[in-house]
Every structure is written in C-alpha cells, then in structure tokens.
C-alpha cells in the first residue's frame, strides 16, 4: 500500500489513536499500555501484515521517553512508525519478543542505554556496556566527566 491509503486505513482501524503523516511514513502514537494490543492487530491483520520490525529505539524527551517502532510488511512493502509514550520515572513497557525475535537484542540495547524495563523479556541484561555500569548513557541527563567529550 502507498502511504496515503495506508494512513487512511490505519485511521479507520484505530479511530481512537492519533495517526498522522510523518516525513516518510504514517506515524501512530499510543500509550505504553496499549502496545501489545496494537501490535497484535497490526501484525495479525491481513490488510496490514506488519511482520517486520526493522528498527526499535527510544528517544529521551526529558519529560518522558518515546519508544519508536519502525514496522514494515514484507508482503505489501509498506512501512509505518509506531510511537509509545513511556513514563520517565518508572520506565516500563511490554516486550515485543514474542512477536519479533529481533526485538530481543534491540530491547536489550535500549535497556542498556536508556534503562527502559521491558516486561516479559526473556533475557534482559546489559548488552554493550559492562554489567556493573552505573547509569544509562543515552539519557539526556547522563553525565560522565571522564569518558564524555563535550564539543
């Protein structure tokens, strides 16, 4: 599907969520509690068939985190962006491992660098940093006087 019809069908499919056109693909914003339900619908539906999670990351907006999921369909060749708002004090969101196996490593990376807790993740450990590392470097308030180079 092209972006326009996809946007329309998403808006009809999820009337209560805000779906707008981003710079590349339709963007849908949801609350973190809705995640599993929305993903199940997006992946399970024959119209969309979003079976391919090609990017999963997090953005620190200082007031809250946004988990950004880039989804695509290998069948219809359309893509979309799913954004879930995560509380900054208690950063918790459901894991997508049971839908996409690639999420296991991607979520470990996000956990490592942002400190977002993924519920029901099979093996949530530090990935890039050592196990005894303190803090989450990609947060905006992270400060390390030794290793960080300020330009």
């Amino acid at each position: 599907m092209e972006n326009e019809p996809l946007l329309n069908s998403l808006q009809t499919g999820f009337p209560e969520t805000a779906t707008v056109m981003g710079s590349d693909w339709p963007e849908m914003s949801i609350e973190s509690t809705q995640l599993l339900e929305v993903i199940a619908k997006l992946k399970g539906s024959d119209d969309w068939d979003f079976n391919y999670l090609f990017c999963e990351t997090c953005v620190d907006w200082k007031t809250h985190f946004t988990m950004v999921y880039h989804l695509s369909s290998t069948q219809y060749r359309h893509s979309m962006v799913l954004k879930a708002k995560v509380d900054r004090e208690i950063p918790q969101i459901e894991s997508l491992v049971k839908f996409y196996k690639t999420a296991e490593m991607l979520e470990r990376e996000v956990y490592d660098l942002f400190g977002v807790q993924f519920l029901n993740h099979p093996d949530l450990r530090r990935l890039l940093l050592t196990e005894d590392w303190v803090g989450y470097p990609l947060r905006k308030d992270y400060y390390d006087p030794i290793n960080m180079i300020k330009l």
Partner: protein
Amino acid sequence: MRNVVETTPEGNMVLNVGPQHPSTHGVLHLFITVNGETILNLDPNIGYIHRSIEKMCESLSYRQFIYSTSRMDYLSAHMNNHGCALTVEKGLQVEVPVRAEVIRVIISELTRLASHQLWWGSLAMDLGALSPFFYAFREREMITDIMEETCGARLTMNYIVPGGVMADIHPDFQRKVKEFIVQFKSKIGEYHELVTNNVIFQNRTKGIGILSKEDAISYGCTGPTARGSGLSCDMRKIYPYSAYKNIQFNEILETEGDSFARYMVRMREMEESVNIIEQLIDNIPEGEFLAKTKAVLKLPKGEFYTRLETARGELGVYIVSEGGTTPYRIKFRSPGFSNLSALNHMIKGHKIGDLVSVMGTLDLVIPDIDR
C-alpha cells in the same frame, strides 16, 4: 557485556570465542556452550568496540557527524555516509545534482565490490584455504586505488557531504573503473574455480546454518543474509534512492537459506554491481557535483528516516531534530546487529567448525554491531 564463565551448571563446557579470535574479525566475544564439538547455545557478548557514536553525534553538527559514521561499518563507509547525507538532504529539502547522484552510486557499488571481495577472501581463509585472500586483494587493490585518487582515502572515504560529493571525480576515474571491470570479469571465473567449485568448500557450507524465510523476517535480517533465505529486501529496489531509480539491475535471491546460498548471493551480487557500474560509467552527466547549501545546516523540527542498502544489508538512519544545528537524537539501525541476533538460532546443533562458516557468511563487521 558479561563476565567470563567456565562451565554451565549442567557441566557443559563454555568456550569463549573471542574477544580476540581469528575468525570473529574484530573484537566480538561469543560464549558458546559446547558438548564435545557440538554447539548447544551461543550468547554474543558485544560492546568491546562500542564508542557510543549515537551519543557523540548528538553534539556534532550536521556536517560533522557524517564522518563518524564511516567508522561504523568501515567496509561500507561510503554507504553509511550516503545514508546520513540522504537523511540530512531530506530534512533540508535539497536537490542533489544528478552528477553527484551518479558518482555516489558508482562509488557505492565499488565499495560493495571491495567489501564483498574482502569477505570472500576472509571466508575462504576462515575455512582454511589461505590463498583466495590474495586473489581477492589483487582486484580489491584496484578499487582502493580508484578510491584513493578520487576520494583521498582508501577505506574511510568521507567523500559525501550533504548536497553532493566533496570533490569532482579524478580525470582518470572512468578509465580506471573500466580497466577494473575488464580485470574483474576475466577473474571472476577464477574465484569460482578456487572456492565455489571446491568439494570441501561445498561440504562445509551446504546445509549449514539454515535460516528459513520466516526466521529471517522475525530476526530482522537484511542484506545478502536474508536474500539467501529468499527474502526480498534490497532497499535499492524497494525504496530506490539516488541514481538507482533509473538503472536496470536484478535483486539476487537464493532460497536454500544455508551458508552456501548466502555465499552465492554475494558472489552473484558482485557481478550485478559490475553491471550497475557498467551502465553508469559512460553516462556520468556533466554539471555541478555539489548543490549550494548554507554554511550552517539546520534541520527543521521533525523526524527523518532513511533506509538504504549497504554491503551487509539495510542501514537505517533515524534523525530526530528539534530545529537546532545538531541532531536531538540519532539512531543507526545497523545490518550486522540484527544479523548477529540470528546467529544463535542458526548455529545450534552444529559443530565448532561450522561456526566459522556461518559467521563468515553472515559477514559481520564488529564496529558496525557495536557502533
């Protein structure tokens, strides 16, 4: 990163492959649980070369940050730069001159060839045949010479700037590329004789490390790894960018999903890259090679994502801009990261020797995984 262990609670031996190991081609560390020679489980331990490029980029301007991306997948440095430039150009709404687009694509394909040749040589070396490495470097040297003349560097070229390319091509560029094409076409048969048709090589790769199409999708595999499993995922075809819109080429697909299929995809891709270069090399349009842009680049508020094909698979460049001179958040979706996550699934039940062949055909570049 986790700490070293000797044995599992069940009493199986844990073998530390890496961080310094000849076949990981970098500081990758794999914990493999083995029973005799059979691998029961594999746990990749990465981060030894993590430089936090994403965090660094947050304090670099839009002209500067491109250079740090050459250090991710250093074998597709040009494509990494290309991805960043495309994203910035998308944000700035800059029209890139056609000449620059064609040059970018030619250099991209040359980079892909160089990367695949290095991969081919090192795969053969991992499997114990030491000679093909030198045969691969014979042709690769011609490419790096071309790069040196035009881009000023042989590996991390940094040739692309937002709006075009940094400098015009060297006057000898076209002649040398044509020479290379003639040389490569006469030698590709030698490659197949040396490695592809070798019985031992075929025994070592056929039926090893099978990745089904469904698993390739679920693990988010891209590039030749996924195309070996029959998953069509060539970003040059799906989201044609730059000069790829106007040229004829085939997406290489194999369906077996084993090491040999991945091998064949890359081998055939090399020939396809030569095909692409042949179409473009005589048709480099005259004109500007760099669009006029402001001295200080400022991206509008918004989010920009570019998917493009590097030698290893799909690179995603995700820039979140708050309207300033530096990106607010930048994320590189690297192909090696996702491909590595499928390794455990592919290697279970195989022998230690197969780890080398599977890892070799995944074509991992460690800085690309760690970033």
